[in-house]
């Protein structure tokens, strides 16, 4: 599993689609995961999933298990960094931000490679 992060509107998905060769199945928000899909799966906007899905962690684990089952499979998580800026007024937003920070720490540990995209330019940080 690779993890790609960076700010909003920094060209993360565009870079991933160029970097990873082959046809990619891109999963977003509440889209279900089709087991018959391509060998390259890119999960975009994971920050939204973390905020909206109670089963987000289980969902990520299921995808990582799928990747582990076959060597040709490649899983890529893309998450926007929403952890900076001033502390949000709403408690649910503070929780969302915390959950995203914790989950990204976990992705950093589990990932084989991690890239931070800075306005279209990649910086490999793991």
């Amino acid at each position, binding site marked *: 599993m690779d993890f790609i992060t*960076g*700010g*909003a*509107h920094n*060209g993360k998905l565009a870079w991933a689609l160029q970097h990873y060769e082959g046809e990619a199945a891109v999963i977003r928000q509440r889209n279900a995961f089709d087991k018959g899909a391509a060998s390259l799966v890119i999960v975009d906007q994971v920050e939204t999933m973390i905020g909206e899905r109670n089963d987000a962690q289980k969902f990520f684990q299921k995808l990582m298990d799928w990747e582990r089952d076959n060597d040709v499979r490649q899983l890529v998580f893309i998450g926007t960094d*929403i*952890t900076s*800026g001033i502390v949000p007024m709403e408690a649910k*937003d503070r929780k969302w931000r915390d959950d995203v920070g914790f989950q990204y720490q976990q992705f950093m540990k589990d990932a084989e490679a991690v890239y931070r995209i*800075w306005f279209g330019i990649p910086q490999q940080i793991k």
Partner: protein
Amino acid sequence: MITFICGGVRSGKTGFTEMQMLKSKCENLHYIATGVATDEEMIERVSHHQEDRRKSERAWLTWEQPTKINELTFSWEDAVLLDCITTWVTNKMIQHEDLDPDQLIDGLLNQVEALIAQPGEVYIISNEVSRELPSPFSMVETYKYIVGTMNQHLAARSDQAVEMVFGEPVFHKEVDG
């Protein structure tokens, strides 16, 4: 040569860029100020930057140009600093409230290209506004989309791309020497 500089507030973007430009072989140094001083805090920030340039070891020509940056004319003997994309985008958004964001971006890119084409060296400063929670205000999200798209374009277009991190430059693209 085009240099793109981006970072958070008070990360030393202007100071770093001015230091780079003092070493420039270009004969004339120009500063394009896009910020409009509308309140005391902004006046204070502007005079702080003006004071720095007054004390500088080289002379600077300052152009106050909140919107029409393409109306300035330069030659290859000029090194030009545009400070900054974010205030310029703000001014243009206010001026063209009815325009669709992508149309506005097209216009902005044309103006930037016109500016980039003229001088010997161009330095363009922008701000990091992309690493926080989405705003409940759609205008703020549109603003972040426009600034992000402009920053991506400038990073791709540049010969040097520098992220300022609390006063330290991190080069994402670098020119030798």
